[in-house]
């Protein structure tokens, strides 16, 4: 296994990086969807996230990464319940994964060798309190998508199969990436992602050269490269930690709430999830910037991320949804 490419070494793609940082500050934002061209650093960014994120306290050996010993599920059969710190889990959910692997299933090994009925936790358990990354989420099989939606919604994974009856908490940030030209994402799933980002290949030659140079330097000598970017990664990590502390204290004026609502009405987003996410994202942004209150500037930055994927789809509208959000913002947030 090679070390991951450092997060701060990713050239450009500011929206994508911002969205990831926001979910790191407030995991309740509900995940990020990154849609765009191939070879634009989507997977690189997600894999970089793991090493960027601060350590969390977990019960040693707990299959669902619980924070306190009393939350450890009975079926884990842990003897010692000491605490340890570990990195935030970032779990890869590959295409073609089976239901068993996602939810967890009967532990075949124990059943075969000892004739015991035991539960073997799946990817959802591993991802608890961390990130669940699905590359090419638009190609994922429907029944897995339904399952994920259900768990992401309730924060709990319920396994009722093969004579097992088990439930455990599964709160994770869903990160999906994909290429829209290969298939569309079902609107139900689209809506569950808090933020969405469209990534494009950089158009500037110098920027492209910089991408290639950094990648090349990384492959040549990963150690040196990591050392070069470690201070910057650390700076981001500290800002995230700082923002997490500040998040609760961010002042939200009535005017800001009104702005959110007006923007959503102007765009005709379905439901109220848009407003809520916009508000949350705005506050996380304010915390990251070190501000004390939520201002229109923060909303302006996060509105395309929070709303672009919630618009009523007009398949024949040339203008991208980001353009539509920007247009409405100019009208509403004057």
């Amino acid at each position, binding site marked *: *296994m*090679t070390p991951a490419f450092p997060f701060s070494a990713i050239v450009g793609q500011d929206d994508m990086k911002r969205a990831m940082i926001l979910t790191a500050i407030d995991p309740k934002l509900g995940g990020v969807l990154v849609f765009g*061209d*191939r*070879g*634009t*650093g989507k*997977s690189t960014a997600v*894999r970089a996230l793991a090493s960027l994120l601060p350590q969390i306290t977990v019960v040693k050996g707990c299959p669902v990464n619980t924070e306190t010993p009393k939350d450890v599920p009975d079926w884990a059969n842990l003897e010692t319940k000491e605490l340890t710190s570990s990195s935030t889990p970032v779990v*890869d959910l*590959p*295409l*073609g*994964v*089976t*239901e068993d692997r996602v939810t967890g299933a*009967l532990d*075949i*090994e124990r*059943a*075969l*060798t*000892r*004739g*015991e*009925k035991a539960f073997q936790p799946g990817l959802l358990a591993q991802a608890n309190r961390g990130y669940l990354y699905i*590359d*090419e989420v638009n*190609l994922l*099989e429907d*029944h897995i998508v339904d399952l994920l939606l259900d768990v992401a919604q309730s924060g709990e994974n319920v396994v009722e*199969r*093969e*004579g097992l009856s088990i439930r455990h908490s599964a709160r994770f940030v869903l990160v999906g990436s994909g*290429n829209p*030209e*290969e*298939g*569309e994402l079902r609107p139900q799933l689209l809506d569950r992602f808090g933020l969405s980002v469209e990534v*494009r*290949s*950089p*158009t*500037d*030659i110098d920027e*492209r*050269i910089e*991408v*290639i*140079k950094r*990648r*090349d*330097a990384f*492959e*040549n*000598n990963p150690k040196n490269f990591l050392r070069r970017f470690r201070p910057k990664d650390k700076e981001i990590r500290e800002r995230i930690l700082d923002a997490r502390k500040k998040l609760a204290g961010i002042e939200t004026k009535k005017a800001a709430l009104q702005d959110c609502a007006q923007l959503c009405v102007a765009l005709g987003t379905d439901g109220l999830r848009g407003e809520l996410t916009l508000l949350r994202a705005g506050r996380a942004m304010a915390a990251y910037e070190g501000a004390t209150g939520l201002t229109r500037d923060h909303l302006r930055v996060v509105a395309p991320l929070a709303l672009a994927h919630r618009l009523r789809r007009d*398949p*024949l509208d*040339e203008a991208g949804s980001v353009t539509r959000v920007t247009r409405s913002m100019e009208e509403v947030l004057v």
Partner: protein
Amino acid sequence: MSPGQAAWARACLALDLLCADPSRCRGMIVRARSSPVRDVFLEILNRKLGPVRRLHPTMTREALLGGVDFAQTLATGKMTKSTGVLDQNRPCVLTMAERCPADTAALIARKLDTDPSFVLVVLDEGIDADEAAPVSLSERLAFSVSLDGIGRMEATPHSSTDTQPVQSAAVGRKTPQSLRALTALAARLGIDSLRPPKFAWSVAQLIAASAGRDTPNEDDARQAAELVLAPRARHLPEQEPDQQDPQPEAQDTKRPRSPESQPDDMLVDAVRAVLPPDLLENINNSDVSRSKGSGAGQRTRGNRRGRPLPSRPGRLDGTSRLDLVATLRAAVPWQGLRGKSKAGPIRVYPSDIHVKRYEDKSDRLIVFAVDASGSAALARLGEAKGAVELLLARAYATRDHVALVAFRGDDAQILLPPTRSLVQTKRRLADLPGGGGTPLANGLKTAAELAQHGRSQGLSPLVAILTDGRANIALDGSVDRTRAKEDAKGIARWMRHAGVPSIVLDLGMRPHPALAALACEMGANYTPLPRGTAERMSETLNAAMDHGLGT
């Protein structure tokens, strides 16, 4: 050196470089059908890479990544795990990659991403441009080699000695000229992804290092461009955006075209020399055909026919079929708990039952053949475009696939091979210029062939022809009104014979009796396009389509 020899030399060079630094190059795509030349190449490949593992597209997850070895475990009473093919630290060769489904490709791609020592050779036997190895794999491999056009005698067993691993020098702060040139060239060839220029740069460095140079010179860059960038080109470098055929504008504007980004002419010439001759034909399609994933179409899942999928727990309710092996596999681990049975050696409970699932492709494909000739343009090309858009919105709702064929001047063009990307279709349509003669026969032929092709991939096609019916260009491109009509009639008869369902929409100011006759010849439903509001037009069209599709 003949073109064949040059191509062979390039293929061998790619192989040498791959062996010299597998962790940088990652692997290669060999695009060729089974042939003696390919056999020679694979022989060399096997010799140089050492023992390889063969992968095939239908391999399961367990076979690739490992899992519980049931037979062994039950026999010995001890837990035995099998090692996946991907984890055996050997170079892998994926055969028939054009059939590789997206999920298998994703697993292999993940292996490529996480394990830098993994080497993959992809054998792609696709015939058309739309039959190719999954992009998620081809993106991650440096070389793409085509063995077409190489004669058996030209494929000499490679004489080079064993290649030594080389270590290329790190790039300093200053950007080398060749790196800039390669990046700019990639952008100019329409390669959006940044992986290919990265590979090109690594390859240039490798070539330089094996020649003992520190930084790649122009010649190294040229070779790298030929090997890595040329096979992935999407448009020819000399084409300026405004001269291009209906290339969507939005795509052009996002590509860098600033004057200082112009790569050296030498590089451009080098790449142009090795571009496949049929690039021009595939150029407009390659964007799309490469972007639609592995398959031909929307798949429907069922338990009756199609390609098998992993079975799922279920009930035998009369509509599903039992998957015996999976059921037994589910039952086996429990035998210890369930105790001995008098009835037989194994106790199966209802919860063990697994049912078979299959994947079937049976989506609809609507091929629009739009007459963009001068006469039609004069009449109502704009309205026709509007009508097609209305149909597209409907196709979107019913998740149909659409394809777009335009005929004008002296031939017909596939503007868009079957796709579900509406935005693409809309752009191509909007960019469709009008003018020129009416090669009706050509248009019909192209559309019908596309429909036939779609059918062979399991889609149910419908050809919708929008024309004013005033054919004046014959099949061979000559201007001859009588022959043009005869040719159109011939093709129409062929379509009827081949059973291509079609509808004819008359674009003319007044309904054209000859076109009605042609539709009759084709066995098609003839509908004059009504004048008036878009809604009325859409009503008529919907009715015609429903009829045509037999819904």
